[in-house]
């Protein structure tokens, strides 16, 4: 049986761990609230963006546009959104698994990493093209624009043939879905809406005109569309990260609680044992003298 001192030391260390996990839980709860608000506020924009782009694409079915067909050769690019910090349960590894266990072949994949954890997990196996890890601390729309610009430039040059976005979708505080979304070539269907499908009530309306003409409009709109998806992905990922961390820290705290209870019991038993032993020794000693 472990000595009293050992048990006490162990208990102390678990207690301080518990304090840390408790504090982290509180912090991520607050951050989650904020991230959730952000996600809700920007939701509007993406719905409108999605509706508009899908209505354009519906009207112009047979368009031969560079953003609508995949390049013949070249790598496939994946923008991987993870977090910079760990201790968030399966949050990061779930996103990474999307790629490692996905259908995407290893050799023709180029990773654009947003978030250190994803980058670290993927860099042994895959080629990391660029790293935007600082961005995820506080996602801003301009950051998404910069990333989008770089990816599209590579696409236009023919270096990459398809672009995917791997992120964690935020359904609600406890449900987060790792998602792999195809950005380019653009494929619009009901399931591709970033969050729930936008209602396309375009049918009853008068036909839409475009200024400039369809093709040019697409040239200008699709980068905006991609940017908004990347931005939306980042916003949702941040919300999911904090949600995941909150859950992980919550269960860590209650696990620590359990262990402390167990150790307290052991400690008391050990204390009782040592008292009994001392007593027997004293009595035996007294008996020997008399």
């Amino acid at each position: 049986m472990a000595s009293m001192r050992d048990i006490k030391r162990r208990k102390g260390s678990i207690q301080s761990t518990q304090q840390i996990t408790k504090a982290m839980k509180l912090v991520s709860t607050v951050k989650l609230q904020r991230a959730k608000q952000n996600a809700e506020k920007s939701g509007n924009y993406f719905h409108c963006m999605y509706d508009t782009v899908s209505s354009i694409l519906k009207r112009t079915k047979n368009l031969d546009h560079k953003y609508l067909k995949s390049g013949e050769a070249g790598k496939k690019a994946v923008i991987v959104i993870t977090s910079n910090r760990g201790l968030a349960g399966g949050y990061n590894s779930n996103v990474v698994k999307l790629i490692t266990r996905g259908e995407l072949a290893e050799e023709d994949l180029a990773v654009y990493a947003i978030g250190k954890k994803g980058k670290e997990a993927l860099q042994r196996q895959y080629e990391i093209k660029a790293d935007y890890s600082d961005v995820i601390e506080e996602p801003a729309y301009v950051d998404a624009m910069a990333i989008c610009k770089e990816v599209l430039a590579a696409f236009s040059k023919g270096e990459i043939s398809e672009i995917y976005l791997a992120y964690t979708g935020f359904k609600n505080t406890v449900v987060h879905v790792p998602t792999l979304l195809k950005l380019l070539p653009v494929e619009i269907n009901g399931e591709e809406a970033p969050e729930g499908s936008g209602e396309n009530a375009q049918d009853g309306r008068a036909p839409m005109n475009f200024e400039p003409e369809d093709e040019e409009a697409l040239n200008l709109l699709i980068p905006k569309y991609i940017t908004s998806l990347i931005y939306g992905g980042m916003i949702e990922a941040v919300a999911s990260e904090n949600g995941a961390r909150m859950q992980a820290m919550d269960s860590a705290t209650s696990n620590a609680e359990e262990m402390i209870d167990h150790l307290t019991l052991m400690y008391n038993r050990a204390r009782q044992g040592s008292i009994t032993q001392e007593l027997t020794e004293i009595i035996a000693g007294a008996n020997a003298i008399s």
Partner: protein
Amino acid sequence: MADNNLFTLRIITPDRVFYEGEASMVEFNTTEGEIGIYKQHVPTTVIISPGILTITEEGGMKEAALHAGFAEILQDEVVILAEIIEWPEEIDAGRAEAAKERAEERIRSKTPETDILRAETALQRALARIHVIK
């Protein structure tokens, strides 16, 4: 409703709803030139280029610097999806002036490497900002 010439105007940015209300006219710059929209406009989608956005409401006019995005115009509703838009009070005058000078300088002393298009849009943006605060 014959005399009601108001339409719903919504301006949405990635982080917030910038404006929502009834307006009688809205003017802004598009890639094809400046346009003014009244109610009953032909449904159109336009791409925005940097400039001044003027909203005419019942009570008066409002101005904002609108830099990028696109707008969906329907007969009784206009939705502007703005990537960047600012009210006059949000603009930093000093920064706008500096940006204007920088852009002008870049256009004046152009070298083959200069990204003229970028410099011009930067100049347009700075000018719109400066105009709106005045």
